[in-house]
């Protein structure tokens, strides 16, 4: 029983530590899926985007502890979410793993996922 309680606590802690960034997923142009993630406070150096098989893993740390910047001082108001950004997506076989482009600008990470050429819709000419 004591072990169970331990597990619950750890889960709660883990849940509190990571922020799931707000996303916007759309297909702007045919064959390119654009995935935008809002991660304010994350700079290029602290961001990691990994593709591992079918998993697209995004991790963003904020500098200087939890809130970003110096943490000394007294908080009079604390509304911003604390912790590090973490999100994992499952991508299927139609996405070309080699042509994923990532741009971080103004706290927004934009990933461009290209569909494989063989998966794109094509017209069949009638002879």
């Amino acid at each position, binding site marked *: 029983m004591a072990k169970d309680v331990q597990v619950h606590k750890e*889960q709660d802690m883990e849940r509190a530590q990571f922020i799931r960034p707000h996303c916007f997923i*759309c297909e702007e142009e045919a064959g390119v899926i654009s995935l935008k993630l809002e991660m304010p406070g994350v700079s290029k150096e602290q961001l990691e985007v990994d593709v591992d098989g079918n998993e697209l893993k995004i991790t963003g740390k904020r500098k200087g502890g939890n809130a970003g910047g110096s943490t000394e*001082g007294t908080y009079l*108001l604390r509304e911003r979410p604390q912790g590090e950004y973490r999100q994992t997506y499952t991508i299927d076989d139609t*996405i070309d793993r080699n042509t994923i482009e990532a741009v971080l600008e103004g*706290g927004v990470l934009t990933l461009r996922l290209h569909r494989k050429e063989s998966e794109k819709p094509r017209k069949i000419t009638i002879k």
Partner: protein
Amino acid sequence: MALVRWYDRDLEPFNTFDWLQRQINDLFEFPRAPETHGLFDRRVSPAIDVIEHPESFTVKCDLPGIDRKDVDITIASGVLTIKGEKKSVGESAHSKVYRKETWEGSFQRTLSLPSGVDTEKVEAVFKDGVLTITLSKREDTKSKRIELKSK
């Protein structure tokens, strides 16, 4: 294409129930959606942090995806106002939207400043989508250390 949220579910049987319970609880909780104000003129209030330092106050505001030119910061009679507009990006009539959690439109946040803020000495930095405003305290309100003299 399936872009589905990935969950780290261990093989423990009760974890699934925990997960289900969290999902149900989360249905009624939107802690990360920004608050909106105004009846006719709806505005988003972005989340802010106010931190007091011995010499200054720091106000931090998360404004991702917003251009520096679209943010307007004013101080009038002890009230700090951060306002502006977040323009929609990458959305056109032809685009196919799969999932949208972000917001756009105008936002405004007002904050009554504590007494003792020197409104002349205000610095604002906008970096990586975080707006940091540093407000210096007036000289006479800064905390002073009193030296103890021994006789």
